[in-house]
């Protein structure tokens, strides 16, 4: 077996997935070929380095997103100590909120009897002038005849 063939088989050889007879042939070659031995070491080190790869994990960010997504999908809540299914809790909160909104809407929009508000300053003066005129021209007597009787 030549160097080219050994290098093709080297990865499988190191992973132990070569048939026994092929593995023996690779082994025999490695015993006699220092260049392929070097190749084997480089391969072993490369894979060993790769296994050391451990990126920093944003654990809290991931967890927060999981909770958010479950909430958005109306799934059961995932939180420590909480055994109340999220959907049920959500429905309860939504019902309470709807009641509050309905009460507020009714309070502000419910039709009320028309209220006579005091006239504005200008017309207010005119109103009292007219009222005074009406009163002194006999309006009071028409309205309260008993006043005169007394």
């Amino acid at each position, binding site marked *: 077996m030549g160097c080219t063939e050994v290098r*093709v088989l080297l*990865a*499988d050889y190191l992973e132990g*997935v070569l048939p026994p007879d092929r593995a023996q042939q690779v082994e025999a070659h490695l015993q006699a070929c220092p260049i392929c031995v070097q190749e084997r070491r*480089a*391969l072993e*080190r*490369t*894979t060993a*380095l*790769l*296994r*050391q*790869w*451990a*990126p920093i*994990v*944003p*654990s809290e*960010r*991931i*967890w927060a*997103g*999981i909770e958010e*997504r*479950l909430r958005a*999908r109306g*799934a*059961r*809540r*995932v*939180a*420590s*100590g*909480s*055994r109340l*299914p999220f959907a049920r809790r959500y429905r309860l909160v939504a019902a309470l909120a709807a009641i509050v909104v309905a009460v507020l809407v009714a309070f502000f929009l419910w039709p009320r009897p028309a209220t006579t508000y005091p006239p504005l300053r200008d017309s207010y003066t005119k109103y009292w002038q007219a009222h005074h005129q009406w009163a002194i021209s006999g309006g009071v007597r028409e309205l309260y005849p008993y006043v005169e009787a007394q």
Partner: protein
Amino acid sequence: MNTRSDTELVQRAKEGDAGAFETLYARYHARVYRLLYGMLGNRDDAVDLTQEVFVRAWIELPRLQIEKTLYGWLRRTAINLGIDYLRRRRLVQFQSLDVAPDEEESESFEWQIPDETQDVEAAVMQSELQECLQQALQRLSTIHRVVVVLHYIEEVPVEEIAQQLSIPVGTVKSRLARAREALRRQLEPLLNKGNEHGMH
């Protein structure tokens, strides 16, 4: 540390114990994230899909049948989501394998044998090693990075990778060979320093 088995925790989670699910999350989310980050080469996408994996796990809990550990299910789901994502985004080629590693960056790495002591120097070395590995993986094209991560980091057998990716076993092997070659070129400074320090 929680010593309960996955089977027990899954059962408790099925019954509505969110704490049990949180324990499973604590146990496996880092591995799921690493797998997806390795496959996709992007932190935000990896966070996004890791969240999706666990959301699906929670939703699927009532129907979930696990053999020994939950990780098998999580890994399968993560790989499927990762592959779908890459296909959807058509991220076929991230960067050519033929592109030589940046000389300046390669020389800036200083190989140090990872030290068990927790001193600052060791932390810096570890950080440099991680940075170097990260860059080496990033420089691989997506198709090569995916097989490398699945095979060398997740230890998924070649046959299973072929099945997952719907490609022949021979293609997986040839991609692995090319990726190994590219990685070896890029990690050469580390490998040479390793030789000098008698790394085995």
